């Protein structure tokens, strides 16, 4: 198993490459979902603040 992690001596290049891909792609995925949730909450709050007008059909 330690042989696997050593990557034939290239561990210092292979693992950072995979870690970076995980951080960047995971990061943008997380940020995208969070931004969607935040916008949904904003729209709900704004539509709730307009009581007399009928809500537009979805």
């Amino acid at each position: 198993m330690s042989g696997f992690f050593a990557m034939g001596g290239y561990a210092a290049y292979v693992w950072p490459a995979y870690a970076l891909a995980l951080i960047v792609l995971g990061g943008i995925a997380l940020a995208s979902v969070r931004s969607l949730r935040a916008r949904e909450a904003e729209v709900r709050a704004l539509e709730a603040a307009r009581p007399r007008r009928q809500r537009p059909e979805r």
Partner: protein
Amino acid sequence: MFDRLASPTRFAAFAARAQGWVAGGAVLLILVGLYFAFFASPPDYQQGEAVRIMYIHVPSAWMALFAYGFVALMSAVGLIWRHPLAHVLATAAAPVGAAFTFVCLVTGSLWGKPMWGAWWVWDARLTSVLILFFIYLGYIALVGAFDEPTRGDRAGAILALVGAVNVPIIKFSVDWWNTLHQPASVMKLSGPAIDTAMLIPLLLMAAGFTALFFALLLVRARAELLARRVRALRLIEARGAAGAAEVRV
């Protein structure tokens, strides 16, 4: 089908239903791809285990170009048919493309150091991909620089179309200039010049990254549509408040 989806409301409903499936497919393909990349593919006879960097470097390079092609195509559709959804899709795709470009550049650097002996060289391929990254950043900044989204859309779309000249430059840079970066080994007319055992993880990761691109596109396009709705609602609110103030005076 595209006529139906061209309505932003219908698109948002479709995206909400599709995003989970596309994201699930992306995760599955990437996990299977990682298994093949690490356990079911051999080390290279020259590069040893360092070749495994290829399974993220090459698919992210493909996605960097694919995403840019998508941004440019949507920009053209938005400019010609003046369809707001096309601009929303272009705006949603650009940061995803920039992320793939960044991954491509850094993993390339991590591969270049042990193989070429340098983190970076001003080779035609590397330089043109770095320019692609800057075009993405410029596009994102320009679209966001206007108070009126439609003006940002148009300005960004023009930049995206002008920047599209860089795409064939990237693709053919390895043939036009005698550079350090190796030429294409998969996407060539004579067929892939790469062993099947290495082609399998490469294509699985590429399929996974493509699915990831579309999953993120759906989520980000929904968020962008809602952001525009928030802006419209705030404007109505502000006008309503101004109108009420006038009545009171």
